[in-house]
């Protein structure tokens, strides 16, 4: 399993795409911190950018790589290696390279410029978000035989999480605006890893007061120790469950 991961990670490093991703993240973070003296504002900007770029790159790159390495998978399946180890090896190989890109690109600048609990929470949520979206990418990849369909599905997942979901929530709020929905909203956020990550980071920043009554309620819930554990736990679910499902599908897949 780790040997497979090693070969995949080495192959990814050679391809330079991950290197470009690292440099892009680093350039964004450093320029944000340098242009704005207010560290908190800087963190908010980085969060906003991170919540778009990190899931997108993770999900698209992992799916593309999965399909480009289809030959490698075929070769491995004819060898005495269990399918579980093949898929987990792939997962570890891909996620370790994308995750290190994130840790170097965002983690290092944040720790340098904005060391503190908020910075650490931002790095943790970003890492978990990366893992979540690679899991989702694997799910999309094993569900589809065809590369184009696989990448399409991966993009749909990203669209759902970053755009469609917010629209649905707005429609829902508007339609049921006569009812007290604040607590329901907390439950609804569980269905979108990006929202979970956003809330986790923003509520560390004491700007929740600007978000009105719902914001205050969110602060009350997600700002508490329990709320943080709850949202980290949910992010873990988003990371582990798709991976387990893809392992099950992969075990029965024809190659």
């Amino acid at each position, binding site marked *: 399993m780790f040997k497979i991961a090693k070969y995949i990670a080495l192959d990814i490093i050679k391809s330079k795409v991950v290197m470009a991703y690292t440099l892009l993240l680093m350039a964004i973070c450093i320029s944000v911190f340098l242009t704005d003296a207010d560290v908190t504002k800087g963190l908010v900007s980085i969060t906003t950018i991170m919540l778009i770029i990190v899931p997108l790159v993770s999900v698209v790159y992992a799916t593309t790589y999965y399909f480009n390495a289809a030959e*490698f998978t075929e070769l491995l399946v004819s060898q005495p*290696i269990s399918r579980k180890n093949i898929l987990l090896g792939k997962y570890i190989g891909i996620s370790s390279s994308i995750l290190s890109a994130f840790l170097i690109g965002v983690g290092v600048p944040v720790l340098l410029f904005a060391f503190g609990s908020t910075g650490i929470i931002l790095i943790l949520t970003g890492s978990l978000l990366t893992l979540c979206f690679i899991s989702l990418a694997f799910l999309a990849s094993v569900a589809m035989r065809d590369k184009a369909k696989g990448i399409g599905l991966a993009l749909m997942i990203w669209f759902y999480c970053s755009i469609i979901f917010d629209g649905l929530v707005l429609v829902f709020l508007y339609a049921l605006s006569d009812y007290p929905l604040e607590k329901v909203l907390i439950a609804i956020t569980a269905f979108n890893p990006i929202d979970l990550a956003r809330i986790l980071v923003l509520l560390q920043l004491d700007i929740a007061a600007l978000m009105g009554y719902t914001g205050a309620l969110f602060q009350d819930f997600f700002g508490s120790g329990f709320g943080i554990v709850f949202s980290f736990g949910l992010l873990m679910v988003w990371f582990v469950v798709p991976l387990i499902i893809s392992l099950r599908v992969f075990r029965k897949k*024809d190659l």
Partner: protein
Amino acid sequence: MENIIEVKQLKKSFGKLQVLKEVNCSFGQGGIVGILGPNASGKTTLIKSILGMVIPDAGEVYFGGKPVARSFDYKKQIGYMPQIGRYPDNMKIGELFKMMKDLRNVHDNLDTDLISAYGLDAMYDKAMRTLSGGTRQKVSAALACLFNPKVLILDEPTAGLDPLAAEILKDKIHAEKAKGKLILITSHILTEVDELADDIMYLFEGNIKFHKPLSALKAEAGEQKLGKALTKILTQNV
């Protein structure tokens, strides 16, 4: 003699297409079996089911008496040469061999005959994506033999090889047979199967039409050549 591979009531469909319909067959230890059949008769699917690459809808495959479903250890004893060898593009030939040894964790008792016979060691620095189809086939063949497996499964081994390389491979197959290995070959080149095979298995639309020794087949048809014998028997059956 005990059968090393046994296939029992194997069924597989892809969508609506039934590729294998209740295939029953067994292969003893040692000897060369030629698996023949028209295109899309299920040859590759049968082979892939034995290798666990295709998961059958029903039925079982046994290797050395144990069912292969959900197990993978038995693949240590199989060398597989795919119809179209596809390998990671960025890898070099030398790296590929090194990786396979590393993944299997086998570094001794390797069979490098084909690597030297094909001069692959001189091309260790070439990337897989730059290789021609024939060279890829050579790499596949060398890889299949590398770990001295008990069973060799070759899916159209000489397709795409130049005549000289094909001869080298045939000699290798004979040599492996002499060591008492079981070798399954699918091929459309009947003269080649005629030269190599001891037994012939004929697949047609997902069923096994017959599975018998080559000599018996020829005697039955009263022909000296496999090609003619096959045509005669198949036209009689219709």
